[in-house]
């Protein structure tokens, strides 16, 4: 971890986040705090604002209002070097978004070389180590099109962890995968979690949420409706909206 001085209380803090797209208000005042080594799961129906909320955490979406802090440092402040902050926030996307013109190794080492300014050999050593962690070092020389969806997503995770970020944001990491490929990606995420990585996950993998998450947040209509331990959210839903959502995803 890139922690230096006294560990901050929260890795991610977001307060009163609003986001509008034209007339549509996607987020209507959302708070989110993530403690070190915590795995926070955000669930909710599509259009609930959960992905937008996640993307506000590294300013891929600029909040219309509100404050985002990463390890205590306010990043929504004017004049913050966002590129510097983003080095500390990994992100994994639904569509993997690997660079098709580069090998897996090139994908993982690009930011090490160009952002962290490492020499090529050092960057590649680190990229190999990251690929080993996701079990794909033997595919280091392959291009994304030569990999399965699950392998591509694991390379994308390696790209994020190689930067040794303080937190990794996962935006529906398994939604674009064939069912039989989901397991390998969840396995990597589970290992990451066990190694102490702080993670925020937007996903529909309820079973994974149930046994890996520390906390589950249910969003609907641009607001946090309920949150709590997985146990509490999944077995003791209090709002009708959460009940309806859980019924729709589990099919009971």
């Amino acid at each position, binding site marked *: 971890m890139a922690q230096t001085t006294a560990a901050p209380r929260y890795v991610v803090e977001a307060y009163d986040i609003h986001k509008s797209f034209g007339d549509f208000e996607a987020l209507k005042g959302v708070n989110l705090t993530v403690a070190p080594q915590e795995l926070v799961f955000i669930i909710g129906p599509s259009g609930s604002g959960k992905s937008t909320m996640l993307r506000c955490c590294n300013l891929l979406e600029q909040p219309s209002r509100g404050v985002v802090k990463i390890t205590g440092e306010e990043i929504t402040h004017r004049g913050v070097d966002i590129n510097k*902050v983003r080095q500390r926030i990994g*992100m994994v*996307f639904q*569509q993997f*978004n690997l660079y098709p*013109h580069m090998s897996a190794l090139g994908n993982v080492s690009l930011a090490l070389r*160009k952002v962290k300014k490492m020499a090529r050999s050092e960057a590649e050593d680190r990229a190999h180590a990251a690929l080993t962690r996701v079990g794909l070092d033997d595919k280091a020389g392959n291009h994304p099109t030569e990999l399965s969806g699950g392998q591509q997503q694991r390379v*994308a995770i390696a790209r994020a962890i190689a*930067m040794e970020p303080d937190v990794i944001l996962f935006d529906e990491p398994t939604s674009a995968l064939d069912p039989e490929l989901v397991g390998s990606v969840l396995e990597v995420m589970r290992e990451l979690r066990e190694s102490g990585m702080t993670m925020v996950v937007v996903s529909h993998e309820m079973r994974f949420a149930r046994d890996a998450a520390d906390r589950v947040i249910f969003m609907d209509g641009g607001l946090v409706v309920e949150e709590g331990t997985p146990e509490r959210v999944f077995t003791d839903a209090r709002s009708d909206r959460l009940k309806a959502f859980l019924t729709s995803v589990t099919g009971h």
Partner: protein
Amino acid sequence: MDRFLDQFFNLEVMAKYLPDVAAGFVVTIQLALSVIVTGLTLGLALAVIRAFQIRPVNWLIILFVDLFRALPPLVILIIFYFGLPFIGLTMSAFVISWLVLAFVLASFAEEIYWAGITSVNRGQWEASRSTGLGFTQTLFYVVIPQAIRMTIPPLTNRTIAITKNTALASVVTVEEMLTVAQTSLAYAANTSPLTMAAVGYLLIFFPLTMASRWVESRYAWKR
């Protein structure tokens, strides 16, 4: 048949005018290469500058590009050749032909590169920016390599179409291959020099298309 052969493949005439046509061939190659290198480079530079979305700059680029795409190259060539001396710019006919064709190629190339840049998936930008690469770094390391690879086929087409216009330079007295061939044709009262010129064009453009196919396959990746 004999008359046809005599008209187009008269060896005597060919031997006599070969040195002249060869000299023209060299001029055409020089002109073609200069146009290709500067045109494609300038086009890429313009597309890159346009990506920075600086309004007044973009208007200028679009004006430049639309002008040079709209006007026939011959018209531009004549305007430049006869007009520039009036504003104190005297350049050789070769340089003017080179500049005009390079500008025309750059204009078409800019639009093609630009289309390539805008068609790179937004997710590529987001992934790159999320790792801390800046806008310019993302443009150069992630977006442009993909844009160029996508645009090789249309770029090749345009490059060939515009580079063939080197023949227009004959209008402003450049001693390129077609000029020489036509002069020789008039002297010899025989079209064989034109046949040689035709072979000359094939010698220039076949390698060009082959090179582009090679580049295309070399850098292709399945999508």
